[in-house]
C-alpha cells in the first residue's frame, strides 16, 4: 500500500483538543487522515453519510485534550463509551496488526480501556495501570527530554535510534504512570522482558532524573509504553507539537532538520504502508 492510501482515524469526543495537530501530522506526510467523532463509529445521532466503520481505517489515533471534562478520571469516560459499543471492533483492529496511537489524554484512554499495558491478551477487563495526578499536584507544561529505550518492537518509533534523546513537550496534570503496588516489580520486569517500555524521562545527559526532568513522578520515569506486539503505543508528551524544528525552544540555535516529533508519524506510516 502507498502512504497516500493509509487512512487514519483521528478520534474525538467533546473535550478533545489536539485533533488538528494530530490530523496535520499525518496529512503533511501524505497519508489520508480524517477527524472522526466517536458517534460516527457507534452510529448514534448521525446521518447515514456521516457513519463510519473502524475497520475502514489503517491507523487509529487518540489525540490529547480533556475528553468529557476529565470527569471520574482522565480518559475514563471516553474509554467507557468506547468499551460499551466498540469493544469487538477495537479488539479486531488490534488483532489485525493495525497501529493504535494514544497521546496524552489518548494514552490515559488506552490505559483505562485496558489496551495498555495489556499484560495478558489484547484488552484487559479492568485497567492494569493508571495515570495518576502528578507528584507536584499541578498541570505541568514544559519541554521534556525522552530517551528511547525500546529495542525495536514499537512500530511508532522505528525511525528513532535507541538511546536517542528527543525533545517532546509535556502538558498534563495526570501523567504519573503507576502499576498496582503488590505486583509492580513483576509488571516492570515483564514490560522490560517484552520490550514494552518505549521512552523514559531523562536529563540532558540522558540519565534518569527527578523533577523537573520527570514532570510527573512516573514509575521508573516511564513516559510511554506499548503492547507486546508494539502496535498499540501510548505516551504522555506530544510529538505532534514538534513536527517542525521551529517548534523546538532552541530552534534559533539549532535550526536544521525536522522536529523531533515527525519521526513518530513517519515510523507508523512506513509500518502501515509496508505491512498492512
Amino acid at each position, binding site marked *: 500500500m502507498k502512504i497516500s492510501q493509509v487512512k487514519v482515524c483521528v478520534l474525538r469526543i467533546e473535550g478533545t483538543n489536539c485533533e488538528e495537530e494530530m490530523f496535520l501530522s499525518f496529512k503533511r506526510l501524505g497519508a489520508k487522515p480524517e477527524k472522526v467523532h466517536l458517534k460516527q463509529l457507534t452510529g448514534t445521532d448521525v446521518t447515514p453519510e456521516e457513519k463510519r466503520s473502524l475497520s475502514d481505517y489503517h491507523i487509529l489515533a487518540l489525540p490529547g485534550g480533556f475528553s468529557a471534562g476529565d470527569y471520574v478520571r482522565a480518559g475514563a469516560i471516553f474509554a*467507557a463509551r468506547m468499551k460499551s459499543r466498540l469493544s469487538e471492533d477495537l479488539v479486531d483492529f488490534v488483532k489485525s496488526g493495525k497501529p493504535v496511537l494514544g497521546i496524552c489524554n489518548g494514552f490515559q484512554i488506552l490505559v483505562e480501556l485496558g489496551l495498555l499495558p495489556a499484560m495478558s491478551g489484547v484488552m484487559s477487563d*479492568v*485497567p492494569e495501570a493508571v495515570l*495518576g495526578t502528578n507528584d*507536584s*499536584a499541578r498541570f505541568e507544561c514544559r519541554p521534556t527530554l525522552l530517551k528511547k529505550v525500546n529495542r525495536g518492537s514499537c512500530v511508532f518509533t522505528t525511525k528513532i535510534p535507541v538511546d536517542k534523546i528527543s525533545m517532546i513537550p509535556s502538558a498534563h496534570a495526570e501523567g*504519573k504512570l503507576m502499576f*498496582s503496588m503488590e505486583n509492580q516489580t513483576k509488571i516492570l520486569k515483564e514490560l522490560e522482558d517484552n520490550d514494552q517500555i518505549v521512552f523514559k524521562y531523562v536529563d540532558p545527559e540522558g540519565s534518569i532524573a527527578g523533577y523537573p526532568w520527570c514532570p510527573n513522578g512516573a514509575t521508573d520515569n516511564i513516559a510511554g509504553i506499548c503492547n507486546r506486539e508494539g502496535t498499540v503505543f501510548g505516551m504522555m508528551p506530544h510529538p505532534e507539537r514538534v513536527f517542525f524544528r521551529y517548534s523546538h525552544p532552541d530552534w534559533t540555535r539549532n535550526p536544521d532538520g525536522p522536529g523531533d516529533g515527525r519521526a513518530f508519524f513517519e515510523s507508523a506510516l512506513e509500518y502501515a504502508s509496508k505491512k498492512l
Partner: protein
Amino acid sequence: MVVAEVRVELKKGVADPEGKNTLKALELLGFEGIKNVKSVKVFEIEMDGSSKDVGKKVDDMCRKLIANPVIHDYSVTLK
C-alpha cells in the same frame, strides 16, 4: 428508591498530591495541628430496585468505571 453512596479513596501507600497540597495550603493559612489531609471522591447514585440488587449493580459500576483498581479502594453505603 435506593441511594448508593460510593466512596472512592486512594489505596494505602499511594501518593495523594491533592491531599498533601491542601495540607500545605491550610498550614500557610495559619491552621495548626493538622495531622493529615486525604482527598476522597464521593458519588451518589439513585436507583430503583431492592437494596441487594442495587448493591450488586453499583459494585459492578465501580469495577467498570468509577474506581481504578490499581490505585483505588471503594466502599458502597446504601441509604
